[in-house]
């Protein structure tokens, strides 16, 4: 019985298959684990309105190096804002360390440059945060919040790119499990084209475009959310309406799209375990986001009158700084960050080189 498995093709750069050092992956994980609390506490700072609790920068109430712990924990707003700064410093150090390790050990130049971009990103992000304080500028706080999510996505991308799994060779049977035999798409991709291609080969470009588009869509949604959180006090009321509706429309598109993407990957790319799992996680996160978004509105703006008419009257009073408001709003922000990194990771796996399968012959 002869196996029809295509013989694995050696990657043209199989020397880099050994991958970067363990240190780079460990540091990338440390960076992500440091950045998530940083983004989370940043979200808390915005929710509590504590961004100006410490009026100076880069010092804290005149202290350049060490702000006394007793003073730090004595006032809630100062605790949050100074804590955010300390976390930022830790993330800065981790970013520099990662960039050095990548520069020294990673054979892929674009990954080395990504490490340097992360350093630049953390510097710019810290500076934006500082300028927001010095200028007491809500617009800068908005930009600071949006860049934070980009940085978090970059850190997560570095985790993926430095992982062993990324460098590991795929099993030779990959092409079979990806639907070569079961999928109806075994016919030539186009009339006269080569027959017998796997789904990944036929639909791969569409998968790449779709997952990249999803990551962009989730980021757009994060930016729209930031507009709702950083309202300029003298802005026209029209803008809020625009942001709310855009946020709702993109939420619907992203949540619906994520479910569709997951079903599509499950059906057509059943062998791609990592993209499939990430697509499932993204779909779950974005559905949870819909619920958290509704709770965020409820705890910030109350139960809408139309909801009292059509759903149920709710005797609810919004409480500024109440635990419901803090939990709902900050969870919504945090889940947004997690959705973004999941979408980025999904896109990266979709874009991963297809090295274990034979390349399609060009059309005659």
């Amino acid at each position, binding site marked *: 019985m002869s196996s029809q498995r295509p013989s694995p093709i050696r990657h043209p750069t199989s020397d880099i298959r050994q991958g970067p050092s363990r240190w780079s992956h460990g540091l990338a994980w440390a960076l992500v684990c440091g950045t998530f609390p940083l983004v989370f506490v940043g979200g808390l700072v915005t929710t509590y309105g504590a961004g100006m609790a410490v009026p100076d920068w880069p010092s804290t109430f005149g202290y350049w190096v060490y702000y006394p712990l007793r003073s730090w924990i004595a006032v809630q707003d100062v605790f949050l804002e100074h804590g955010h700064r300390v976390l930022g410093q830790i993330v800065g150090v981790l970013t520099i360390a990662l960039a050095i390790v990548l520069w020294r050990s990673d054979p892929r*130049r674009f990954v080395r440059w990504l490490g340097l971009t992360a350093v630049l990103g953390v510097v710019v992000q810290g500076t934006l945060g500082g300028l927001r304080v010095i200028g007491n500028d809500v617009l800068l706080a908005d930009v600071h919040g949006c860049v934070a999510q980009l940085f978090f996505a970059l850190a997560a991308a570095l985790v993926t790119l430095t992982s062993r799994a990324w460098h590991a060779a795929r099993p030779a049977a990959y092409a079979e499990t990806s639907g070569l035999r079961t999928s109806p798409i075994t016919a030539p991709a186009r009339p006269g084209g080569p027959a017998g291609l796997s789904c990944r080969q036929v639909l791969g470009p569409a998968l790449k475009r779709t997952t990249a588009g999803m990551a962009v869509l989730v980021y757009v949604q994060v930016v729209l959310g930031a507009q709702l959180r950083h309202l300029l006090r003298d802005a026209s009321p029209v*803008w809020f309406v625009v942001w709310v509706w855009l946020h709702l429309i993109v939420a619907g598109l992203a949540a619906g799209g994520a479910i569709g993407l997951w079903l599509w990957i499950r059906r057509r790319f059943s062998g791609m375990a990592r993209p499939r799992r990430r697509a499932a996680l993204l779909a779950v996160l974005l559905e949870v986001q819909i619920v958290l978004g509704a709770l965020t509105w409820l705890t910030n703006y109350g139960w809408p009158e139309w909801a009292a008419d059509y759903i149920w009257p709710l005797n609810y009073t919004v409480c500024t700084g109440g635990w419901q408001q803090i939990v709902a709003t900050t969870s919504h922000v945090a889940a947004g960050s997690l959705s973004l990194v999941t979408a980025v990771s999904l896109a990266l796996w979709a874009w991963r080189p297809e090295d274990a399968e034979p390349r399609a012959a060009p059309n005659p």
Partner: protein
Amino acid sequence: MMRSKTPSPIVLHAAATGIRVGAVRRSAAGLCALLALAAIWFSGCGPEEASFRLNLEGRDPAKIRPVQNEAVRDALQKLFGTPDKPLAPDDSGLDLALLEPASGPIGGDAQGRQTGLYRRYCAVCHGTSGDGAGPTASMLTPYPRDFRSGVFKYTSTASGAKPTRDDLTGVLLRGVPGTAMPSHIQLRSEEINALVEYVRYLSVRGQVETYLLQLVVDEDAYLPLSMKEILEEGVAPIAQQWAQAPSLAVTPPPPPKTDTAELWAASVARGRELYVTKDAQCVKCHGPEGAGDGEDSELYDDWNKPKKGLTAERTAELARLYTLPLQKVRPRNFREGVFRGGSRPEDLYLRICVGIKGTPMPAAGPAPGARGVLTPDDIWHVVHYVLSLSRE
């Protein structure tokens, strides 16, 4: 022998992945440049000093000249300062020391003393000028209060009177259930006092502003009064209205005894009788069963009435003169059990007794200077009836 040039691993990898190295480099460089530019750009863009918006709501721009606007703006700035540096005119009854923590940009110190409380907690809905047209306003029902008219819905004072400090404090602490107005129970008492004073400041300033704008339009002049005359004829009478508020406050008397089921049922039955009487006028708006479905469905508060023309065309024409679109008032549905002015029996007593100012909800009870259509006991019976509906 010539050595063949071996492609670098990155080139090979890129060839395998389909990623163009140049594109990655260019993207990274572009991103860096963009971030750097953004940092440089925004570093020179500090916030401008906050200013009050002139109250031109509902005013035909053709009927007031820019020079008149400027004159009013200057006079107001001399009297009341700016949002960052407010002033309290003589005899205005405003306490500048109390105002300080609420005014100015948002900030804090190492002891946790906050400044800019109004901008932190209120301006996003009520606007920096207290015009009720902050960034979120148009999506809220009802719209946030426009402080500039000096009219506040939930007070303990007689019809037409200003609210007391305690009334404003109560709304800040309690919030307005079923709306976007939050409870600020987490704030310290001195912070609440500062916010109350700042709301009073915006109201007094707003009323003086309305007075001056009306004056320049009526007289068709630049500004026909000196600062001293403005203080005497504009500020002082308004300040006096605010000062009189505590003397016009109503304290709910003790309710009639309802400690047995029979007494309670009798009180509810009496309340039902009063509820449907012509004098009390409850049914007209709240409907026969208290479901908020009375025959009067075209109801508007004082902030929206001027936006309503007799015809649809006139309404559309008026809409251009206002920041926020026309919004109807909906009578409360008692069965939902959501009472915006507070759900304690005493709160409901006050709503019936002194009404809800600026809305079609009239004052039905006795108050200083008013006899009222219902006696205190009658009001309590109606309160019990309304409470019985909400518990059904």
